[in-house]
């Protein structure tokens, strides 16, 4: 197991290095640079370029960046003067992560329950109801979902604050809006996976032992059905925790989301790279955790000796 984790960590480092390299050179291929702006005079722009080291050969810039990265230093943002990328991420990530965790807890718990209920009541009204929720969740984009929630729960009925992120009551609407899509896909996957497990031979064996339906569902079906859900959870966790542009803009949450978009628009090389590496790191980490969790849930994929 230890050997396996070490191997995976090494693979993860190589993945991240490849990511950094590709993105580093790709951004340079974009037209313009952070300082091509009508407002800057040519001299100022040239000064800025040399200040950030753009006048040095590209390959030298690349190695300088890598060396800084090894120290955990993403460098200075080229648009937000005097702020490091680390500082910006440190300021905004806690909000995104907080919102993301709430949304995830909601999505996974309700998604699993809905999926299980739907599968147990296949073809009945309850199943139909769960399927409708799943369809709504997957087909309505999050910005519409967010707006609908704001309109009804925030403005019309006044149950929750419409925007800002100042306390528990503020978190409910954005977390729900963010959770909906994941909730819907978790419930759909869990439903079909449960149905598949139900027709397995070992369920018949369990039944032939005289076990109760409750025991069969919980001990024999769910654990075997949960694997496909775990598979989608890796990338989903990474995506949800690191912030989403749309939900955070709609609910005026000071999260990371907006920097994904603005950094690209503004050619802010350091920000683009910083965000990408941060996200990539998260994604790789989540997938690694999921892979280890597989072994916990299913002894067949457990690696090495226990």
């Amino acid at each position, binding site marked *: 197991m230890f050997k396996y984790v070490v191997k995976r960590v090494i693979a993860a480092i190589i993945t991240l290095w490849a990511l950094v390299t590709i993105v580093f050179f790709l951004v340079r291929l974009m037209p313009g640079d952070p300082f091509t702006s009508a407002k800057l005079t040519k001299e100022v722009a040239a000064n800025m370029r040399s200040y950030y080291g753009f006048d040095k050969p590209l390959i030298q810039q690349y190695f300088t960046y890598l060396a800084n990265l090894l120290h955990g230093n993403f460098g200075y943002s080229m648009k937000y003067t005097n702020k490091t990328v680390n500082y910006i991420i440190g300021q905004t990530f806690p909000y995104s992560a907080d919102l993301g965790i709430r949304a995830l807890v909601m999505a996974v718990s309700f998604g699993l329950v809905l999926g299980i209920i739907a599968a147990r009541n296949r073809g009945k009204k309850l199943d139909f109801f769960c399927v409708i929720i799943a369809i709504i969740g997957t087909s309505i984009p999050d910005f519409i979902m967010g707006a609908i929630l704001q309109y009804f729960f925030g403005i019309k009925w006044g149950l929750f604050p419409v925007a800002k992120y100042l306390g528990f009551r503020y978190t409910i609407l954005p977390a729900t809006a963010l959770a909906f899509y994941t909730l819907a896909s978790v419930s759909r996957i869990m439903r079909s996976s449960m149905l598949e497990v139900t027709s*397995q*031979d*070992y369920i*018949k*064996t*369990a*039944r*032939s*032992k*005289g*076990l*109760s339906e409750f*025991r069969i569902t919980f*001990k*024999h079906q769910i*654990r*075997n059905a949960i694997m496909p859900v775990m598979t989608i959870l890796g990338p989903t966790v990474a995506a949800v925790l690191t912030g989403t542009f749309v939900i955070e803009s709609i609910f005026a949450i000071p999260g990371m989301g907006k920097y994904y978009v603005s950094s690209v628009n503004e050619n802010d090389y350091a920000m683009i790279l910083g965000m990408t590496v941060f996200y990539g790191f998260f994604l790789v980490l989540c997938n690694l955790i999921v892979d280890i969790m597989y072994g916990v*849930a*299913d*002894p*067949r994929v457990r690696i090495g000796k226990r």
Partner: protein
Amino acid sequence: MSERENILELKNVVYSFHTYGGEVKAVRDVSYEVRQGEILGIVGESGCGKSVTAQCILRLNPEPPGFFEGGEILYKGQDVLKMSKKEIRKIRGREIGFVFQDPMTSLNPTMRVGAQIEEVFLGRTDVSKKEVKERAMDIMRLVGISDVEKRYKQYPHELSGGMKQRVMIAIALVSRPSVIICDEPTTSLDVTIEAQILDLLLELREKLGTSIIMITHDLGVISRLCDRVVVMYGGKIVEKGEIGEIFYNTAHPYTKGLMQSIAKLDTAKGEKLKPIEGTPPDLFAPPKGCPFAARCEYCMDVCEQLPPEAYTVADDHTTFCWLQHEMAPETDLKKATAKKGEV
């Protein structure tokens, strides 16, 4: 042998499935009985209703789409069909064990083997936890699993096919049921393991006095193991009785066909096996006469029109075939002793 009392009796069981294509009449008027301590073989080709009938006993068929149209299943005199879900659960595993066809898929991959055996005792207050573990380990030893301490903690994927089937048998046996139903337990195993499993079943019958229902399509297995045989075709019983009678005094063309399609040691070189031509009947619209009529070399007009009556050929030998009728022509299957009679 025939003096023993019936522990399980199926009377005129009719069982069907609702499907999109219509109603599949899987079991049509099947009656047989299992006596104390005997091994009853049920033989027939795929889809003839032998497994469905056996699963009816524990009501393991998915319902819906399956449903009973009639009949009685008496276990120790009590009708299983009239029992509540709770009462049936008490019979499952505890009174009647079930060994399924494919050991590779019939064990839960995420549970340790020992826990899966112990589960049979779940919800029972009459045995302590310690006792449960002891009994689980004893039964594992009994079915020939070596290194029980280690196996107990292993997962199914760490065992070989034969070992898994032994675990299945251990699950079926652990609470000392009066009957175990083996649904083609050796079909997916190779022949050496098959022989071991069959020996094991014989040995267990000797030691524990368990009645066994052995479902198979292999007459070799039947001849080796069983005291009595039920031959099924197209959802119906065509012939049943004591094993010697069925093998050496065959009275039904289908049984005869089955025997002829097996390779024997004394088959001459170059001589071909004789298959039964044709395909089994469509159970969406079962034939109104004898189910075997369309494939039968002896087929008469009456066979296509009317379901055959029961004929008692000998003490413990019944066949459902018009050839035994007094007006039927003389054939090699017609028995002088055959009397029209109830089952």
